[in-house]
């Protein structure tokens, strides 16, 4: 979700194999650099492989360009990597959030073959995506300060995953401003 000169990115914490829960502390949001985060929902193995490939590409980029990647560029990179596997895709839906030029917040999501979806307000992905669309649409206001943004995204996340049996076991929220990154764990319905 986009706020006033800041953004927030949140995920649930469940790692499961269909009906069985394997872990309740699984990390789905990864930091690429101080002002760029990517959340990967979907098949855990593909999320891990994709993350490793992205970190590899970003580190090479940093060595060559001597600066961090802009979020828009990174989104194009993710899209290209996913489309490379068009006929044998990674079963992941990424959510990318970052602060671009002049710390302007940037968010986008993609389907598993790299179709970018830019938005000015919020983007969602995962098994509870329909619920998330509804919750975000009703709770979102433009230009929220970081504290209010945190409250809003947390409520939207928890209310959506509570209605989805495959998501949940708490939440993980990052609120990123130009000066700091705050990471918080949420406790919701632990079931």
């Amino acid at each position, binding site marked *: 979700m986009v706020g006033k000169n800041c953004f927030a990115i949140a995920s649930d914490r469940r790692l499961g*194999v269909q009906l*069985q829960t394997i*872990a309740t502390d699984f990390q789905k949001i990864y930091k690429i650099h101080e002002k760029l985060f990517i959340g990967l929902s979907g098949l*855990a*193995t593909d999320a*891990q*492989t994709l993350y490793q490939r992205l970190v590899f590409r970003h580190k090479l980029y940093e060595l060559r360009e001597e600066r961090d990647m802009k979020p828009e560029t990174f989104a194009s990179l993710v899209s290209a990597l996913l489309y490379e596997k068009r006929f*044998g895709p990674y079963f992941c839906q990424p959510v990318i959030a970052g602060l671009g030029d002049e710390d302007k917040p940037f968010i986008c999501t993609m389907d598993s073959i790299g179709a970018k979806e830019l938005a000015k307000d919020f983007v969602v992905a995962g098994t509870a995506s329909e619920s998330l669309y509804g919750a975000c649409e009703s709770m979102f206001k433009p230009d929220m300060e970081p504290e209010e943004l945190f409250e809003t995204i947390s409520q939207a996340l928890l209310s959506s995953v509570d209605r989805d049996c495959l998501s949940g076991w708490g939440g993980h929220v990052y609120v990123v401003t130009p000066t700091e990154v705050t990471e918080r764990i949420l406790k919701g319905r632990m079931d």
Partner: protein
Amino acid sequence: MESVFGLVGKDFAIVAADSSAVHSILVHKTNEDKIMLLDSHKLMGASGETGDRAQFTEYIQKNVALYQFRNGIPLTTAAAANFTRGELATALRKNPYMVNIIMAGHDKDVGPSLYFIDYIASLHKLDKAAFGYGSYFALSMMDRHYRKDMTVEEAIDLVDKVIMEIRSRLVVAPPNFVIKIVDKDGAREYAWRESIKDAPVPAV
């Protein structure tokens, strides 16, 4: 159906696995060792397709040894787990290994650790893990009785509770189990839990 499970204790980790080798309705043997010692301080319990299990675990074991030969120091448990995941992930979309792995190890700086790696190469570090139909019983028993920093006696007691549960509640329950432990003194076999003994084969 094969069961493997493991848990982390105060300064050790335990992995237990059933020891039946089954082909359709026939039980080939009941003392198959499915937990491989990767090196002095690492264990890898594996379940799944028999051929894949034997081949893949041996492949990992030899590569772990090769690293130590080449570099003069052993891999950490985390590194070995990530290497294993990498091999499974690379093979996944070509010729997948149908092997589920629980890797346990002890490192001087980190202490004991346990990694869950399923056959499609999802990796996660956990305190307790289980695979197979037995996992439904194992995870529930461990969720109920597991505490952080258990002693060896308490942990073995919990493992025995799990084995009891699997034996009594799973319809095609494996009769025998092997338990291995890894701590600061190394990885070794701890015990067998047998309710059927194979007839001894005379040495030729």
